[in-house]
């Protein structure tokens, strides 16, 4: 049972994979609440475990992966206890739907676009095929497909990337889900299409009132869409807060680095701020703070003990020793100190 106002709750979740005889931990001690009707963005680089985390919500972990500890609750059911595919089919689509990164391959290449939408309408809304076709065409129109009646009978290869992603969204909508997981839905798309898809998702959320989990590696993308942002690194949530808190008042050095390295913030003539090195290999056991070796503010303690979650405000938490009383008071990098002011100036200047 989840608490009032929440739709999904994750508690102390650990997920591990068996690879060539050894156990690899992909998710480490994550706790997370998802509020009803909110948009939660999960930001992290590849390998940080952001997709693995959401796969536990729909039972789509690869066969060598398992939840080794902790619980996932959705409304009245404990998802972490579901084992059989049959049990999951009650959740997938109908309750929690997912759209994936690559719209080019998400659709079955040899079935018509229309049939792939109405298949879901028939399944989840219990309509006849004829009714389903009408609903499908409506959904196509709603997601911005021009000439929907005609394009209903076309095949995926006749659609462009942006159009396919709209279809993928239409299919997800046809499930009437409570939660929509968007797993990097715009990464493979061009910038202008990305902006349009983001607008579309926003508009549809207004209309259908579902909850969104938006996964991305680009912090810049989520500013316009997220209510809350969780930053992940190496299988851990290192900072979580409202969108404003993350952008204007972040506390974790990794979040600082992510923000500083955004090209939109770069200053002409200076080097871009970059995060040195590469994310830790999952094969190696992490001691202390996973980010420590790349952290310019790293302290001795970071190599010895894993930092706990510190509460900054009721909505804002960060997992770094810098928030311990003993730590030196470190200012965040100058580049992102007056982010809002800076961005206002820049947008003015650029017309």
């Amino acid at each position, binding site marked *: 049972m989840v608490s009032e106002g929440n739709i999904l709750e994750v508690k102390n979740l650990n997920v591990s994979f068996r690879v060539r005889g050894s156990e690899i931990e992909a998710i480490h001690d994550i706790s997370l609440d998802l509020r009803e009707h909110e948009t939660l963005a999960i930001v992290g680089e590849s390998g940080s475990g952001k997709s693995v985390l959401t796969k536990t919500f729909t039972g789509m972990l690869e066969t060598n992966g398992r939840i080794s500890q902790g619980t996932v609750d959705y409304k009245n059911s404990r998802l972490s206890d579901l084992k059989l595919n049959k049990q999951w089919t009650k959740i997938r689509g109908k309750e929690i739907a997912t759209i994936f990164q690559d719209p080019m391959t998400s659709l079955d290449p040899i079935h018509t676009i229309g049939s792939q939408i109405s298949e879901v309408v028939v399944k989840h809304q219990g309509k006849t095929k004829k009714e389903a076709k009408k609903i499908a065409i409506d959904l196509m129109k709603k997601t911005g497909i021009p000439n929907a009646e005609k394009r209903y009978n076309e095949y995926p290869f006749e659609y462009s990337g942006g159009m396919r992603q709209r279809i993928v969204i239409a299919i997800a909508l046809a499930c009437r889900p409570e939660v929509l997981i968007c797993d990097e839905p715009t990464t493979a798309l*061009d910038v202008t299409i990305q*902006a349009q898809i983001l*607008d579309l998702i926003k508009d549809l959320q207004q209309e259908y009132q579902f909850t969104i989990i938006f996964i991305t590696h680009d912090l810049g993308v989520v500013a316009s869409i997220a209510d809350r942002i969780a930053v992940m690194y190496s299988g851990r949530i290192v900072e979580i807060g409202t969108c404003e808190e993350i*952008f204007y008042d972040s506390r974790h050095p990794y979040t600082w680095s992510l923000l500083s*390295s955004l*090209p*939109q913030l770069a200053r002409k003539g200076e080097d871009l701020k*970059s995060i040195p090195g590469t994310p830790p290999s999952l094969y190696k056991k992490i001691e202390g703070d996973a980010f420590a070796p790349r952290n310019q503010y790293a302290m001795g303690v970071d190599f010895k003990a894993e930092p706990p979650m510190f509460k900054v405000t009721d909505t804002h938490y960060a997992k770094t020793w810098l928030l311990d009383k003993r730590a030196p008071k470190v200012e965040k990098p100058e580049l992102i100190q007056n982010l809002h002011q800076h*961005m206002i100036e820049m947008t003015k*200047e650029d017309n």
Partner: protein
Amino acid sequence: MNNANRETLLSIKDLEITFGSGKSKFVAVQDVNFDIFKGEIFSLVGESGSGKTTIGRAVLGINPTSKGEIIFEGKQINGKISSKEKFQIERKIQMIFQDPSASLNERATVDYIISEGLYNYKLFKTEDERLNKVREMLEAVGLLPEQLYRYPHEFSGGQRQRIGIARALIMNPDLVVADEPISALDMSIRAQVLNLLKKFQREQGVTFLFVAHDLSVVRYISDRIAVIRAGKILELAETEELFKNPIHPYTKSLLSAIPIPDPQIARSRKNIIYNPNMHDYSIEKPEFREIRTGHFVYCSDSEAIEYKKNIKD
């Protein structure tokens, strides 16, 4: 900067590139004109299918051209040229690829990958000299000499891309075509690669043709930017000029699509959608015109007048 005084390294004139023939003929690039000056980073920005990569590959001689000229250091390098000449030009123009995992030979060591071009052009006298060159290059891209005999798949994405850069730059090229070198990388890694390219431009005077789809990345790195759509260049200007005075509606739409990393501004911002049917070119034919010094736009006469009126300074 006055462009007239700058030395042109690469000049593209009336370039047209087509694929296929007969009914399935497809014009990928048309009427493309631009110059790249020595030592600058010139960016070609457009969406997928706009023909930007095709132009980059034509410069490298990978895609054949159907019309027009590509002139490099005063000599035409497209069309029919002798294989000997081609071989010599191949050394001077190098490429950095988009996908670091696909563009490295997984069955070869880093040593071989970086030395491949050296072997082909016999750019060393002794084995020691070659090894030294490779080690230096490895260092220059921030990798460790001890990783010389490792295989690409042992490296992370960002590291692999740096191997790709090392392989191209060890050839001492005059021009490097960087084809979306960061779009396959994680946000946090991108800066490393961009800084590295900038460093080579600054320190060794390498000229870059930087192909990208994202204006935000390009702004930081490039000296001049050309915006391309559907095989035609729509606008070309110096970077700051383009951002301050975007003229073509398509450029405006591209700029409006750049994500703003600020929740308050991002939420209130409107996305401009470009409709290519807004231009009426049925009577007046569009041309690539210089609207103000160094700022070119693809437009008709009446549009040009309109655009000039709206320029602010």
